[in-house]
């Protein structure tokens, strides 16, 4: 075996980094757990999940529409029941089916009872299907009409449904009566209703959808970046120690920095891939769901591709931070299992600020642009809402760049400690600072 080193031209630091990253990526993608969480989950699970939600919602809606409820009308001695109301309730009940939105009510006259509670008790004892009861009391001493009482059982869904339908009928009847009386007296019906007002939402459907997505997708960006980096980070550090290939990797004929950078790069690439795929799958599935729910299919929910494209550089810098920190922390563990345990609290460190970032009232400005995690959430929110805040975006990009660099420095510092070879057990999170002060390994 003669020495033939002169024939070989060693790769540069960046070439070596890319070679290591390529190998780590190939290795990670061949790991079943990583492949499931990074690829299969976003492609299959979210569309299936949203499809199931839609089917579930439709099923519940359909069941409600076809549910027949039992209602009754009762009165105290001396009270009168407006015939028109009984007719209105009965009319609705007898109406032929005109599609899935027709609600069925079968009214029954119970008879006389001293009060609403007695009437309810008597009826429910007689008929276990009793759902809701409208009770009329006699006028008070001054001859004023006493409001009718609608009795139902809030612990039973059929009873709640009956309550809603009956209340709707009574309100409609009251409106009709007022209109008739106004006509009788030659006045405008609205004068009898006091202040006439209606609620009006001036946001258009697209804005509403953008708002909903801006509350949903930024949080998911963080969650997915964290989840996407989780398994590859554990796999390339603690997993490598468990598999016994750590020493092999440390013997690679390239600078250690290239090895560490390559590992971080591969984790970041996988996390970005998983995040992108997740956001795309979630955007499409959630968009479809919103389209169905928001306006009964009247609006067309478009995937915010421009916002997704514009957030990509921010997401990339953020994912670098996440990947580097996770690689650094997971490297403290001696086994895959311990690595997962160590990263549990770290996940929360990212997800909690992300949740704070989607709280109403917190907006992107020059101060929030400096808060890690929160800043990337706010930028994405702002982009989804179609805002243009160039200074705030530039500040966020700068701070993300600094955090990414600091995170990589941290990870490289952990990964280059000699204690990774010499320690016989995992280093707890609390021992991190002491670990970082331990002797550095060779270059």
């Amino acid at each position: 075996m003669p020495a033939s080193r002169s024939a070989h031209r060693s790769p540069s630091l960046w070439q070596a980094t890319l070679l290591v990253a390529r190998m780590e990526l190939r290795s990670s993608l061949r790991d079943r757990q990583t492949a499931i969480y990074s690829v299969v989950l976003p492609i299959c699970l979210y569309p299936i999940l949203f499809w199931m939600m839609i089917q579930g919602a439709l099923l519940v809606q359909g069941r409600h529409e076809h549910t027949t409820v039992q209602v009754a009308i009762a009165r105290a001695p001396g009270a009168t029941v407006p015939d028109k109301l009984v007719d209105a309730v009965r009319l609705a009940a007898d109406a032929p089916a005109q599609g899935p939105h027709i609600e069925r009510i079968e009214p029954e006259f119970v008879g006389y009872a001293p009060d609403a509670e007695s009437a309810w008790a008597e009826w429910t004892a007689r008929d276990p299907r009793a759902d809701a009861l409208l009770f009329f009391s006699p006028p008070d001493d001054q001859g004023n009409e006493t409001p009718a009482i609608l009795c139902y059982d809030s612990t039973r869904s059929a009873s709640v449904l009956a309550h809603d339908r009956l209340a709707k009928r009574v309100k409609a009847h009251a409106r009709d009566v007022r209109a008739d009386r106004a006509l009788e007296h030659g006045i405008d019906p609205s004068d009898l209703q006091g202040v006439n007002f209606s609620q009006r939402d001036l946001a258009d459907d697209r804005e509403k959808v953008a708002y909903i997505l801006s509350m949903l997708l930024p949080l998911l960006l963080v969650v997915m970046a964290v989840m996407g980096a989780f398994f590859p980070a554990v796999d390339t550090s603690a997993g490598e120690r468990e598999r016994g290939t750590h020493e092999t990797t440390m013997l690679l004929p390239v600078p250690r920095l290239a090895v560490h950078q390559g590992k971080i790069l591969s984790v970041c690439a996988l996390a970005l891939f998983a995040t992108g795929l997740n956001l795309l799958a979630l955007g499409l599935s959630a968009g479809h769901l919103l389209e169905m729910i928001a306006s009964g299919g009247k609006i067309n929910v478009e995937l915010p591709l421009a916002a997704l494209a514009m957030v990509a550089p921010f997401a990339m810098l953020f994912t670098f931070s996440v990947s580097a920190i996770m690689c650094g922390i997971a490297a403290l563990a001696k086994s895959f299992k311990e690595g997962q345990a160590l990263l549990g609290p770290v996940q929360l460190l990212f997800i909690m600020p992300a949740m704070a970032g989607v709280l109403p009232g917190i907006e992107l400005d020059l101060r929030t642009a400096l808060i890690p995690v929160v800043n990337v959430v706010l930028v994405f929110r702002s982009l989804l809402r179609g805002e243009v805040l160039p200074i705030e975006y530039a500040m966020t990009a700068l701070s993300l760049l600094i955090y990414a660099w600091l995170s990589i420095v941290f990870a490289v510092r952990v990964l280059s400690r000699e204690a990774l070879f010499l320690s016989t057990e995992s280093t707890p999170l609390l021992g991190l600072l002491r670990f970082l002060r331990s002797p550095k390994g060779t270059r």
Partner: protein
Amino acid sequence: MTTPTDSPEQLDSVGIRTEGLRKVYSDSKRGRVVALDGLDLVCQRGEIYGLLGPNGAGKTTCLRMLSSVLSPTAGKAFVDGVEVSQDPLEVRRRIGFLSTSTGLYPRLTGRETLRYFGELQGMQAQQLEQRIEELIHVFELSGFVDGPGSSFSTGQKQKLSIARAVLHEPPVLILDEPTLGLDILASSAMIEFISSARSHNTCVLFSTHIMSEAERLCDRIGIIYHGRLLTEGTYDQLREETGEEYLDGVFLSAVRRADEELEV
């Protein structure tokens, strides 16, 4: 990198040299550990040097420092004329290292593993492919080289590991218990391979527990205990020195003597 007393000829013939090599570290379980305590050792090119010692004697620490995986607390180590602390990267380029803890990447095929190391060594694509084919033939890897590392038997892993270690034709081979866990056939093939390295002017430093291997293979043997080199020499020199007939006896005699000295 060199000492003033070394002549160019001497330097050229030295594969590995250590001077007062020492390693001390702290461990949460074991406290302060003196793994190696001033080791002086020389291994020439074309020589096979066997490092014998019980578990925890410091053999693996010594080999890890020589391969630049660990850095010395004190002292110096030279590999193929390069001081390990000064240029660890160049040392990694000049050695072939094999140990039970240098596992194979389980999700890469054997061929991918060889290609990966070759690329990182800076080998040109065509040259690399030729070399891989050559090694597949020499080490009889063809039956499994395209399967994932996780599917290999211990013997197959060891064969591929040797192929990986010699892929770039290094002038120095460092082997840590290379026959550990191998069956008699694989073990025999490994001994044959190590023996053949001598004819290629390669410097081979290997550690073992198995005395018969050391007897059969080594040009010189060093006995290491509690991080110190107790004695070294050819097999015949050691037998003469201790009056023992076999290497087991030589080893036990050296260790007992060291224990007695420690007690005194």
